[in-house]
């Protein structure tokens, strides 16, 4: 069998590069991944928050940020976020 890679190994390999974080709600974050823990709490740098509201997408720039893992739904490695795809 080919060598397996665990899901969190994939995220570990992304440390230092851009990542796109999609929350359970209408909220997304992009930034440079600095680290994470077993709960997938995530530390990002040079962050942009995208909040989708009926009025449109609200963007917020943030410095170093610790994202609570309990609201995270999906991680997309190497992406600049919703405006990239």
């Amino acid at each position: 069998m080919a060598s397996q890679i665990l899901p969190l190994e994939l995220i570990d390999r992304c440390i230092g590069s851009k990542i796109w974080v999609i929350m359970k709600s209408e909220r997304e974050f992009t930034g440079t991944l600095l680290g994470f823990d077993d709960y997938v709490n995530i530390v990002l740098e040079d962050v942009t928050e995208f909040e989708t509201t009926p009025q449109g997408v609200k963007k917020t720039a943030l410095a170093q940020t610790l994202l609570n893992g309990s609201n995270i739904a999906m991680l997309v490695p190497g992406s600049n976020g919703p405006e990239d795809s």
Partner: protein
Amino acid sequence: MDESPRPPSDQSPPPPPPAQSHTGSPTDFLKGVVGKRVIVRLTSGVDYKGVLSCLDGFMNIALEQTEEHVNGVITNRYGDSFIRGNNVLYISAAEEI
């Protein structure tokens, strides 16, 4: 005649490992940010800006000089406040760490 002092390499302890300036894990981030100004956003979208006095593994947070911001407008000020961790969406550094 070999009177010159020995190089100290035998006695001196090995140099300490290079200081881990940044591993970047959540724990390291929190260590760096205690005592600094932070922005705490709750899942409801309300922001609390203040000086982070302490926190724990549940992301329960104690803030000082707290300002409550709703839609970018200050709605309240508290000297000290406690935020229960389950409500926290993120903690963001508002000054250099």
